[in-house]
């Protein structure tokens, strides 16, 4: 088996604000990413997915748990210890408006990591910038421009080029396409795939869009209230979701086909997302789960795969052979009367 590039174990992150309740954003998350593999981390607001990304990038220090990058635990390292390792990981963010310093030229933005890590000399900077631009299929002459002169899609390409400039082992992408128009998302998604093919980095792709994750990712982890509830191969998780939350998530995404969409039975969740400062005991999802029972309130469901080829699921009602529990859709009638 290939050695894992990234191994995260029992990652926990809490935020303490004096006078207010502690927010437990991430509660014991574990996963690994092999070389060249893209793991999708799918969740909605309050799931803690961005916090996981920031912990991995060490923008935040985890409260506990380990983060191994090529075998070395970077979880509790000081900034000084981390600095030389920073070339091995980088991150792409969501908002193209604020991901690039408006007062720097594209060229300066592109080479900053390389210069910071001492991988290029100042006089080689322009050439390096142009090379990076070509890598992301942009005109090398753009290096003199400023971010505001570029479109959102172009800015995300620059952000990507910058992130892979030091040939990192791990790329963390936090919703890199969410703020872009639909017609532009494909370009960025494809670019990530192509760069991965070229450089074999591992990637954590954070998104709320499970369909997009199904496209780009090799494996998918579904996260809810700071815990992973299901993790496995992308096609398995999306085509045959086992955890009730995954099922609800998949059923909630409308299919762009009116005939098919209106024939579907949608699962509508009851209740509201509990506050991350007061997560429910045992199974985090039981307050909204259509099939929750007493055991869900008292016993933590373990995350494990019933059969080897299947995704690991944290639910008491997944059968021993891995058959998912059937959820009765809330809407008794079809989505519309057409």
């Amino acid at each position, binding site marked *: 088996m290939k050695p894992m590039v990234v191994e995260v174990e029992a990652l926990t992150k809490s935020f303490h604000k004096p006078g207010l309740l502690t927010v437990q954003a991430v509660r014991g998350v574990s996963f690994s990413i092999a070389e060249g593999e893209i793991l999708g981390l799918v969740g909605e607001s309050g799931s803690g997915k961005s916090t996981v990304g920031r912990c991995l990038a060490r923008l935040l220090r985890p409260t506990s748990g380990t983060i191994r990058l090529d075998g070395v635990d970077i979880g509790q390292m000081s900034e000084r210890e981390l600095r030389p390792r920073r070339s091995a990981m980088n991150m792409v963010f969501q908002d193209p408006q604020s991901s690039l310093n408006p007062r720097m030229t594209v060229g300066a933005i592109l080479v900053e990591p390389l210069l910071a890590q001492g991988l290029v000399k100042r006089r080689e900077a322009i050439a390096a910038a142009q090379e990076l631009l070509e890598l992301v299929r942009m005109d090398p002459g753009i290096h003199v421009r400023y971010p505001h002169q570029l479109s959102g899609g172009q800015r995300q390409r620059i952000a990507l080029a910058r992130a892979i400039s030091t040939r990192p082992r791990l790329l963390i992408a936090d919703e890199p396409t969410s703020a872009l128009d639909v017609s532009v998302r494909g370009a960025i*998604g494809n670019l990530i795939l192509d760069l991965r093919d070229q450089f074999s980095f591992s990637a954590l792709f954070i998104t709320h869009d499970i369909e997009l994750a199904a496209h780009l990712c090799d494996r998918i982890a579904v996260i809810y209230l700071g815990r992973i509830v299901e993790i496995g191969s992308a096609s398995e998780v999306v085509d045959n979701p086992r955890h009730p939350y995954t099922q609800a998530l998949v059923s909630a995404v409308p299919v762009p086909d009116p005939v098919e969409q209106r024939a579907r039975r949608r699962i509508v969740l009851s209740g509201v997302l509990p506050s991350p400062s007061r997560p429910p005991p045992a199974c985090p999802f039981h307050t909204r789960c259509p099939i929750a029972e007493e055991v869900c309130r008292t016993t933590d469901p373990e995350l494990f795969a019933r059969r080897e080829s299947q995704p690991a699921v944290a639910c008491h009602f997944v059968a021993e052979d891995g058959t998912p529990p059937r959820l009765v859709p809330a809407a008794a009638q079809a989505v519309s009367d057409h």
Partner: protein
Amino acid sequence: MTAAALEVEGLVVRFRGRDRTLQVVDGVSLAVAQGEIVAVVGESGCGKTVTAMATVGLLPAAAEVRATAIRIGGRDVYPFDRATLQQVRGKDVGFVFQEPLSALNPSMRVGHQLREVTSRHLRLSRREEHRRMIEYLDFVGIPHPEQVARMYPHELSGGMRQRVLIAGAIICDPLLLIADEPTTALDVTIQAGILETLHELRRARQLSMLLVSHDLGVVADMADRVLVMYAGRIVEAASVEELFARPAHPYTRALLQAMPTRKSDRLVEIPGSVPSFEGPQTTCAFAPRCPRSTDRCTSHAPELGAFAAGHRVACFHPGPAEAADPRKARTELS
């Protein structure tokens, strides 16, 4: 014969800046029949929100709005005059905006805000107002409406806030609901609930709706008819089944193919970006990005014309036959 809920003819909207003018909507005509849901689809900058806001004069003063006619429930509201508009808004037309937090007054309790709407348009006693408010909050699926009515917007979740907005929009039983990206800011599981509620609304009250959205999935779920907008113009209009089954305009085809589904392999990209115009268009706005464009497209502007029964397209080369493969990856031009 009942009048259409909304009729717009020849809408043109221009924004005057310091040096230049932008023609954001270039001659849009549309109609929403009673009990019908019409979706206006397009990406950012296509003019769909401006069109929706323009129908009830909600655009800022810097916007120049001209139309041949704008009628709500058969009644002319254009040329705009303050008195008519204030009567119409909230009573005949309800609005649901994208961002519920900024549409609600943070310092006023939710119930109070709803009562404000009714007290302006309906002659009701305090008790009736209260009852109606609870009834509508309950109808949009808010649990414990009595308690929620006493809460402030920030105490509610995003989904609840959006339901409150919907309640406020329909509380005077309007003819027409205009919803501008009503679920875009919400999580997909919450969105599912809101869409269910909107379906309920239509079933129970035959509500007509103008739905503005960039999300083709939501459109497939909700709409009867779809209008595709690009750079300020309607480029395709058809029933929802017809549009998704037989998209005729190259932009519509590209949009549909850009959505990730299990069937396709790589994500489809549309290179280039949306142009902006200072005046009426004289060429096809989509031509620079279109795989089928010819000289005709760069010298004339196509008008909306019949393509099939109940299906109109503004294109010189509409239809399924592909001249070039839109899936071919292209170099991003600067």
